[in-house]
């Protein structure tokens, strides 16, 4: 082990954060190499390449039909790529059937065996490996402890609640200590409160076991919470692969900006203004907006300005030092308890959302419907995206 530093220690030496994807020395655990998957005429995955590293909690995020489930099923071995290869630990796994792969999957429906007890469900995979009885019993007990299911061991799946079934499914898929665990919409069937608790539990278990997790989800909040990196997919292609904060703060396309969280998109024409600053003409009779961008945008190019609602300030007077300020009137107020989102209509009909934290009681709210207000944001608040 000393001679071959693995990806994790390599990354840790360079910096204190876990980021093997930034380390050119790191060896990925999973490599998709120009993978294409077609079902008849339909292309589910389109020449896609992706590296996933050991100990990562990797999220595949996208709307239904974007190909994320196909990616997962190819990793599990239920589908094989039409073109290209998938490597696990450097080995081409395409010809290996699902039962011979060091990969386990947690199914969306949990797929617990209804005729077996919780204990037998967890022991199922270990029995197939002919694990000696004392080891098997110890391993099942360990899994029951890890998922806090000890008292339900003798019950059948239909005798426990949905949240408990979810934990049984997790315990069963982790029992064989796979190199890679696949989770297909693992929390989809749980209600919101339970889902949030379970997300932290999942992260905790991932850290404890050191297993690489790949999760498929359409819930962006879930992906952002649990994942070390998120891949946003659309129509069989990867739109962006980055850490959750980068996906949110610096989306690389209008699609990603719009898919993750709430965003205001303003279309305009850019003019370079020295350095990384640009002027954006966006509407007749309105002062140009100022934004910065490190990526090359040429003068005269059509571009989109993406601004998160929470980065837009709302005030009664024009803020004296505001770089970007527009006036409008309050069209609608969405009260979410901790936050309020104001929908402000500008004179040309554009609607901009501004979000504020409700630090005061609602009776003291400053603005109401039809109030004229000013919206303002800084030059760095918006992301400038080429068309």
């Amino acid at each position: 082990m000393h001679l071959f530093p693995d990806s994790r220690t390599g990354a840790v030496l360079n910096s204190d954060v876990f980021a093997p994807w930034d380390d050119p020395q790191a060896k990925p655990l999973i490599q998709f190499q120009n993978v294409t998957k077609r079902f008849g005429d339909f292309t589910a995955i389109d020449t896609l390449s992706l590296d996933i590293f050991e100990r990562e909690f990797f999220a595949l995020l996208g709307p239904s039909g974007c190909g994320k489930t196909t990616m997962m099923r190819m990793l599990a071995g239920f589908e094989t790529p039409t073109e290209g290869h998938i490597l696990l630990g450097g080995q081409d796994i395409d010809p290996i059937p699902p039962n011979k792969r060091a990969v386990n999957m947690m199914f969306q429906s949990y797929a617990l065996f209804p005729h077996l007890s919780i204990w037998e469900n967890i022991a199922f995979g270990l029995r197939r490996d002919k694990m000696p009885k004392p080891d098997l019993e110890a391993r099942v007990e360990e899994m029951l402890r890890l998922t806090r299911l000890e008292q339900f061991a003798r019950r059948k799946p239909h005798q426990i609640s949905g949240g408990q079934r979810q934990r049984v499914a997790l315990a069963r898929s982790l029992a064989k200590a796979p190199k890679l665990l696949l989770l297909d919409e693992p929390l989809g069937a749980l209600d919101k409160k339970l889902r949030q608790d379970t997300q932290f539990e999942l992260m905790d278990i991932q850290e404890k076991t050191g297993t690489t997790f790949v999760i498929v989800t359409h819930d962006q909040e879930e992906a952002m919470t649990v994942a070390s990196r998120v891949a946003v997919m659309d129509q069989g292609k990867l739109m962006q692969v980055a850490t959750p904060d980068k996906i949110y703060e610096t989306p690389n396309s209008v699609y990603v900006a719009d898919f993750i969280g709430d965003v205001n998109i303003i279309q305009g024409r850019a003019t370079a203004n020295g350095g990384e600053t640009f002027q954006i003409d966006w509407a007749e009779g309105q002062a140009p907006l100022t934004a910065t961008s490190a990526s090359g945008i040429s003068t005269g190019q059509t571009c989109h300005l993406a601004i998160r609602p929470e980065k837009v300030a709302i005030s009664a007077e024009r803020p004296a030092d505001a770089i970007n300020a527009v006036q409008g009137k309050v069209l609608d107020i969405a009260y979410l308890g901790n936050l309020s989102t104001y929908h402000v209509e500008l004179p040309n009909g554009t609607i901009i959302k501004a979000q504020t934290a409700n630090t005061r009681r609602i009776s003291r709210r400053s603005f109401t419907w039809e109030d004229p207000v000013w919206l303002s944001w800084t030059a760095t608040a918006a992301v400038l995206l080429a068309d």
Partner: protein
Amino acid sequence: MNRLSWFNAVSLTLGFAFLYIPMIILIIFSFNESKLVTVWAGFSTKWYGELLQNEAFLDAAWVTVRVAVFSSTLATILGTAAAYVLVRGGRFFGRTLFSGMIYAPLVMPEVITGLSLLLLFIGIGLDRGILTIVLAHTTFSMCFVSVVVSSRLVTFDRSLEEAALDLGCSAAQAFRLVTLPIIAPAVISGWLLAFTLSLDDLVIASFTSGPSATTLPIKIFSAVRLGVSPEINALSTLMIAVVTVGVITASLVTKRAMMRQKQDEMAAARAE
């Protein structure tokens, strides 16, 4: 409880009378003292006693049971395999043709099935006896099994099999350890259906049976042609009793299993 309107009460009475009066008459006359079937001469169980002395009937009953057990078991194995391939096999060449063809014997007139089997057995020089009846019954009852099992397989959650594969099972192990135990109720009811079909088949059996083996329905039919004896009534009453007990037991077992499952699920919901 709502009271029945007179229209509903009449419909119910007529319907049930239509269904059960013939059987009730048969049962009553099986306890008739007289040898004349249609003349009541007092209560007696002597025909049941005589039935037990009748070697020919007992032999036929034993043949019938053996044929039913063997043919329904064989039909269950073949029918389940066929259903599994047709539901799970994916798209292969001729799948639609095969799935249509497996149901053809359901609508085929029994006379034709019997005749074609008879021609086959003569053609290959197979002596008619228990073996030929078993083969013939397997042929016509396996499609019933396959219908019952495939309707269960269609609603079977495919991810259960995938989970078994994912956890290290070969395809055969996944079938034996996961699929089969879960579809077992459908397989068992397929077996029961095949068993019943074999028990009361007259047409196909009469084509394929030989002098060495006669089934009970053939025996009864040929005995009745010489005149109905109270002994036949007694035999039929016994058959009705066996079927009734079987049906009631089966429905009680299913009902109790369903009630237990419902209670478990309610308990689980409360625990949540």
